[in-house]
């Protein structure tokens, strides 16, 4: 199980600290193209910080991030998004007072003069078709004209995924996609991810639901105290005693707070 020489996404020795606490401590990770990669670890191990570092939401004090061989360290979130890296958030960020369909058009970038964009109707017919297709795919089409704020928590997660998909990213970073979502939706979500993966999309998923991660991912990274200490196939991770150790002593705190 060796990674390819030129990794699709690679973080090298990233460091980030808050006050005295090192959220990322010389953290390195490699993601292979076309795979579903999992990222697990106890609460506070730095998973979300790593996501933020990759997607430009937080700067890192040391280290580098490479995407397709190019450094993307220090780029802004919108630049990174434009490169084809989309992400979702642990606490969903949808546009609550806009309709589901309107949410879909935010991320559609088209090369047009900004002055014209001021008065041209949003969403061309091909974009509309695409949005309909994606909403149908995630099962939100019937709610297309509802305000996004009226969606359930699980539906919001799906919407977040949907409105990123419209920009056709090649790499998707999902932050706890299954957190707080009911069982049937979790299964559906897994199917969606597998299907998208079969279309060639690469995933990096932070998740606490072990069953979900271990059945879905091709490869799993385990983080603790700000760095990735092991990488392997799901069955290797499942049987590795160090993983259990890493989780020991962690109370159920996180279980309580995942949902807003």
């Amino acid at each position, binding site marked *: 199980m060796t990674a390819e020489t030129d990794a699709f996404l690679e973080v090298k020795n990233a460091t980030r600290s808050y006050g005295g606490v090192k959220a990322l401590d010389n953290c390195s990770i490699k993601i292979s193209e076309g795979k579903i990669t999992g990222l697990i670890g106890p609460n506070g191990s730095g998973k*979300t910080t790593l996501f*933020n570092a990759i997607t430009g*939401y*937080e700067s890192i004090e040391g280290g580098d991030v490479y995407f397709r061989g190019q450094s993307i360290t220090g780029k802004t*979130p919108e630049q990174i998004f434009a490169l084809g890296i989309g992400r979702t*958030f*642990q*606490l969903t*960020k949808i546009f*609550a*007072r806009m309709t589901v369909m309107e949410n879909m058009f935010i991320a559609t970038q088209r090369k047009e003069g900004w002055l014209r964009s001021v008065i041209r109707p949003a969403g061309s017919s091909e974009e509309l078709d695409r949005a309909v297709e994606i909403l149908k795919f995630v099962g939100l089409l019937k709610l297309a004209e509802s305000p996004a704020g009226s969606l359930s928590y699980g539906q919001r997660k799906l919407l977040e995924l949907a409105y990123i998909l419209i920009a056709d990213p090649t790499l998707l970073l999902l932050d706890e996609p299954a957190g707080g979502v009911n069982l049937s939706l979790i299964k559906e979500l897994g199917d969606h991810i597998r299907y998208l993966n079969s279309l060639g999309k690469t995933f990096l998923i932070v998740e606490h639901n072990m069953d979900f991660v271990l059945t879905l991912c091709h490869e799993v990274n385990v983080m603790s105290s700000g760095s990735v200490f092991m990488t392997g196939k799901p069955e290797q991770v499942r049987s590795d005693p160090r993983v259990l150790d890493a989780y020991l002593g962690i109370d159920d705190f996180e279980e*309580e*707070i995942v949902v*807003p």
Partner: protein
Amino acid sequence: MSAGTLEMAILDGILTGGVYALMAAGLTLIFGVLDMINIAQGIFVILGAYASYSLEHSFGIGLFEGLIITIPAMFLLGAFIEWAFIRRLGEYNRVSMSILVTYAVTIVIEGVLLLHFGSNYRSLTASYVTQSFHVFGNYLPKIYLYGFLLALASVLVLYFILYKTRLGVSVRAAMDNRFAAQLVGVEVKRVSTLTFAIGVAVTAVGGMVFGAVQPFTPNSSYDLISRLLTIVVLGGLGSVGGALVGALVMVVVEDIISVAWTPTWATLIYFAVLVIVLLLKPQGLFGQREVRAQ
């Protein structure tokens, strides 16, 4: 400009700035914890001044002694307003809605004051209002020094509450992240009410000193609130220390320009300084940098 004038101007600025800092301290707390703009802070100060005035004129209670009554009274008023109106603001349009609600509160209080006191100027009088100390070959009004010391003491009390008490921890947690604070068991509603009440209670002191330094009418609050808002933003939202520095910068800059150049442009220069600072540091002098992620 004669010798000592500039030094006096700076000293005046510091003393007056202290009083403005006190009035702004409550505003910045409310800003920080409740995530809202409290337009009514100006009229609370004026209300505080009228409260001191009434006690002095109707009951012969001295300005400082009167605070024993006015501080709890303003505290209760603040708690009531938070409970009755502020708490009902949603998360959406919170900034706009808070402006509108507190504006409505302002005109109600203004109407009550106009009804009761009329629109003529009132001022607080006490012997120390016109007495002075001798410094720099000049005289320093006692009321300025007393006001400054009182303001400083009040700011220290606020600091103590914020950093040494259980409530303070909750307040700071709520300022940092309302949502997360809730998750770790902070009763954000209660903390909000208390913070609003404390922020309003402080105006009892601010109003007393303000009223002793200059005459006031129910109309005076509008000039005041514009100034307080700029102080709070200059210092950084939610920072009590920032309010102190912001107030000092405001008054000292204006005072220096006034005597060293011309009062005509002094106010404008202050606003220009404010804009430049915010251009370089959008979060204000002591504001927390906005976290971009969740």
